[in-house]
């Protein structure tokens, strides 16, 4: 099957992302990568849980002093919504509606950017108001590494999706790039999976104590 062939909505295959060997490999390879990322983030969570509230003296803020639940709630809603918008994008991909797919990915990117903006605001707020920096204490190092690594993954994901949108704007959908969009959306969902654990373990449990 020639990956560059042009299709119509009628003869576009059911699962375009795994029609070619290349697509099957990308699909499997990416799930394997996500398994590795699971252990990676678990290690970061383990470090955070071990060092939570571990500060040199009482002048340093603890979890319950710092975290702002309404802000985190807003960030969570935004990221969760961006997950469903990417599901819509893949739905349109499966139906061979290139422009609609692109549009939903653009919305996903905008929501993701909104999440990042709030997170940057959150970090600068901690630094300025509480002098809670990367090097303040073991607790702060662990917090910024865990949440910052997630933020870095979000950033990378945005760059990835934008690159796909730009690159394929004139090419349209075909069996060569369908797996790429599918895999990018899997990545985006995974980022939300990690965030669910972050808002639960870091922020909610942080407030509860």
């Amino acid at each position, binding site marked *: 099957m020639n990956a560059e062939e042009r299709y*119509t*909505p*009628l*003869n576009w295959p*059911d*699962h375009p992302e*795994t029609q070619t060997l290349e697509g099957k490999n990308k699909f*499997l390879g990416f*799930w*394997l990568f*996500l*398994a*590795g990322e*699971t*252990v990676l*983030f*678990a*290690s970061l*969570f*383990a*470090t955070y*849980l*071990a060092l939570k509230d571990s500060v040199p003296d009482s002048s340093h803020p603890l979890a319950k002093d710092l975290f702002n*639940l309404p802000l985190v*709630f807003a960030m*969570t*809603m935004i990221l*969760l919504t961006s*997950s*469903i918008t990417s*599901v*819509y994008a893949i*739905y349109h991909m*499966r*139906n061979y509606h290139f422009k609609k797919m692109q549009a939903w990915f653009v919305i996903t990117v905008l929501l993701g950017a909104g999440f990042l903006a709030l997170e940057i605001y959150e970090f600068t707020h901690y630094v300025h108001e509480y002098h809670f920096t990367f090097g303040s204490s073991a607790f702060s190092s662990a917090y910024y590494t865990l949440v910052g690594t997630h933020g870095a993954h979000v950033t990378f994901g945005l760059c990835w999706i934008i690159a796909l949108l730009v690159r394929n704007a004139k090419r349209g959908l075909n069996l060569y790039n369908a797996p790429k969009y599918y895999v990018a959306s*899997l990545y985006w*969902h*995974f980022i*939300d*999976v990690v965030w*669910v*654990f972050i*808002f*639960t*373990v870091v922020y*909610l*449990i942080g*407030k*509860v*104590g």
Partner: protein
Amino acid sequence: MNMENEQVKNPNLRAHHDYRRKKSAKEMQVQVVTFALMIFLTIVAFIAVGIGDFSVKFIIPFILLLAVIQVGFQLYYFMHASQKGHELPMFFMYSAVIIAFVTVLAFVTIIWW
């Protein structure tokens, strides 16, 4: 490729296409319902903590359970893990989850005691 020729040669193609559109649309409805449930679970978790009246021993397992359920929705619906062809990926994911669990367990027990 001439679309009319295609349809004449393959009347099944149109039928299959229509069937697939309907199936996709139904799946999409399931996804939207899943999304609504995830929002609901998130709100419940935040409210449970916000109220502040519950004991720590109850709240922490409760919100962790809510998180696990929400992640299950994300994996099995948004990421299509419930569909066929995902057996090996899920095997590796569960292996990773076991290792992840053992790591976290070690770090919350034998680091500081």
